[in-house]
């Protein structure tokens, strides 16, 4: 099993947006998906998940409806709004830039530019 890593600050919102972008989903499913896709590295502290969801909903980046699940229970499903989609694109792009920059610097320390 991969070692667990703490989530850097502020990235929880970005990850939630990405997961929701794939389709309407309820809170528990988001937590599960995050853990599954990252092979257990990303473990969302559940206490932070719901406040983050509510915060995103308050900022109109997510919209929520109450729907029935396959098991017949009612759950609150979140989906991405247009504003949320744009926010996701912007943040994902800047995240990617950051990653590339860090990789360059790390690569440099090992023996100069490639």
């Amino acid at each position, binding site marked *: 099993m991969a070692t667990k890593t703490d989530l850097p600050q502020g990235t929880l919102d970005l990850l939630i947006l990405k997961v929701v972008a794939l389709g309407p989903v309820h809170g528990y499913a988001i937590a599960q998906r995050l853990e599954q896709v990252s092979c257990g590295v990303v473990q969302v502290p*559940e206490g932070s998940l*719901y406040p983050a969801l509510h915060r995103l909903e308050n900022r109109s980046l997510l919209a929520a409806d109450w729907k029935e699940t396959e098991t017949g229970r009612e759950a609150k499903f979140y989906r991405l709004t247009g504003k949320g989609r744009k926010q996701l694109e912007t943040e994902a792009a800047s995240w990617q830039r950051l990653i590339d920059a860090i990789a360059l610097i790390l690569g440099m320390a090992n023996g100069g530019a490639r």
Partner: protein
Amino acid sequence: MEEQLEKELRFHLDEHVNELIARGNAPDLAQRNARLALGGPEQVKEKCRDARGTRWLEDLFQDFRYALRTLRQRPGFAAVAILTLALGSGATTVMFTIINGVLLKPLAYPQADRLVTLHGKTEKYGEQWGFSYPEFHDYQNASRTLGSVAAWTYGGGTVTMPGEAEYVFGRQISSGLFSVLGVPLVEGRAFLPQEDQPGAAPVAIISYSLWQRRFAGSKETIGQRLILEGKSHTIVGIAPAGFRMDGESEIYTPLGQSTEPRMRDRGAFFIHVLGRLQPNVTLAQAQTELSVIARELAVQYPQENQGRDMVAHPLSQEVVGDVRPTLWLLLGAVSLVLLIACVNVASLLLAHAVSRERELAMRAALGASRGRLVRQCLTESSVLGISGGALGIVLAFVGIHPFVSHWPGSLPRAEAVQLDWRVLLFAIGVSLLSSLLFGLAPALRVPARQLERALRGAGRNLGGSTRRLHSGFVVAEVALAVVLLVSAGILGRTLLRLSSLDPGFNTRNVLAAHLALSPAVLENPTKLRAAWEDVLDRARRLPGVQSVALADVVPMRVGEDSVGYWSAPVPPPPDQIPLALTSIVTPDYLNVMGIRLRRGRFLNEQDRIGHELVVVIDDNLAQRAFAGIDPVGKPLWIQGMDSNPAKIVGVVGHVRHWGLADDDQSRVRDQIYCSFYQLPEPLVHFLSAVMSITVRTSIMPLNVAEPLRRELRGPGGDQTLYDIHTMDDLARASLDRQRFLLWLFGIFAGLALLLACIGIYGVLTYLTNQRVPEIGLRMALGASTRDVMRLVLGQSFGMIVVGIAVGIFGALAAGRLLQHLVDGTRSIDLSTFAIVIPILLTAALFASFIPARRASQVDPISALRQD
């Protein structure tokens, strides 16, 4: 909202439990792990709620309910605080309502800020409202910045038909007046330019009240006839109710139809002029143009217009007159009272807060942020402030009308004084501001650190800062009270001094009234003298009448006639000619008014037309023109009369014509008396329209009024007596303003003193309560009751003395302000302080007495056992 959050979290928990069970955990273990993973549900919910950002409003509600509960637990404290604030804010609201109505609200004309009034200005006599009729036409034609110009002057007369003979006040107006002001007529139309010419058919516009009174508001009134001053006028229009031109007027006639000779005299300044600025023209631009026109006129007509400039003022200023400084003065005074009230409540709240220190410390320990606690305190003080303000609005509503009706003279624009949204906004604003003011002190004491100490302490520890703050409150209250008391003292002394001034004549038992002769007689100048003789005879024969005289102006009543004079054959240059108040009287005037004769003789029956023209002067004029020499027998030239001088036959004592308060400061104080019997016919005719009759009675003057009115109805029954006053009333009325201000300031000072004493009592009680253990210790160590009392009183005395010292500075400033604003006030002298300070000291020490006594009666053993 809450339900949904609950539901969402429950769903999450259930799903997690199901998954854990599916993985093979035991159900109860699964429950436990799932719950641990999620964390405390309450905390999660809180965080979600925070994330939603609706916390703020809910918190406010919670604070509000908490504040109400706290106040309900201490009804006495709440009642005192709210009442104190209500008094302060109510008084302030009343003053603001008046200021709003009189000064702030625009006049009731459309686009009233474009209306201006014109005044003439000379260097010697400052601004004067009067224009001559030819001058008015010059400005009307020449001005480009004023789109339309209109004029008016006083008029009116006896109306004989329909109905009984009655003297009505009226105005003569130019044809454009109603359209310049933008006032629509209720019925009919305004005057046409053709009607505003000499020789046109007489027309009139009547007021709403006259319409109701004499025509029963009938719609057929337009076109009917009305007889004014013996001439038949056709009614062409009805003015709206409440329309005023410097006072009530009931009838309007075209100014241009007047045939008086002064209409053509360029030097007769008796017309008011007002105009409306063109759109996009500023007042400054109009002012410049007017000065240019004035200069051209001065060149064209050097005799009348030399040195005469023109100024334009917004019309609202003219309407408001000189009441502005008084209003601001009163607002300032009342704000001081409000300030004292706030300081009082602040000290109450502070005492209250210190005893709650423990509770606040606990809440801080449980996680309340400092900002939250401060907000809590401010909410509490706002509840007090707004309740006080609301009660204050009720008090203002009740008190505004009696206040306005007691205003000396009449308050200009009194009809506009009402509680409207601006007043309510002001009241709320003031309440909130004052809550902030007195809420800050306890709010800032909210403990941020040292929670442990606060939790453990019994809330009795008195930090030095609190003691200093409380002392500061007392000092502030005492200082403010000193300012108000000294101001009241100054006004009181002023009133005393002015009341004892010699009016220059005997005001007791004298009646003065205007008499309007029958219009038929006024038409026929030859009959005038006989008519007046008849009036005098009839009046003399009445029982209770000692002597009767005619006069054109009466002292201490509105109305004066000033003319230039000189005592050497060559007159001084026109702008340096001194002015004197001229009275045209019959010889008995001296006896009726009881004026002192200093030298020579007064006018007598032998001074008739055809004989040498004689005058009597007052000692002011004698001093100015003939310093040292005996003026009797010397000549005096009077401007406007023919080129031969008059002979001075006597000198009388000065009469305070302008009223007891204003006379000493007025510019024109010299006086000349001429005989009515020596006037040429045109002047007799002119003055007969405004003549007054003065009567000295041996019984109460008002008892003679009715018999006099009946006796003087005249052969045609249409001679009317109006504006009846006793000279005593007029003299007293000339001090109305000072008396009113004294009354008000007296109330304010009394309130201030009361509040300050309550404050001292409260603070001292509280401070000594805190010191009970210390007092117990002192007594145990041998201090006597007396020593303790001295201790407490000494502490109080210290605060009071500092307060008085600070207050004295404020009082000096206030005194200078009063001197500036209130006529007749002299600078403060020591006697005012000598009276005020002992009063304050006594009251304050009296208020300190009870807490001191209570402190001295502390049982030392129980005091030491406490804590």
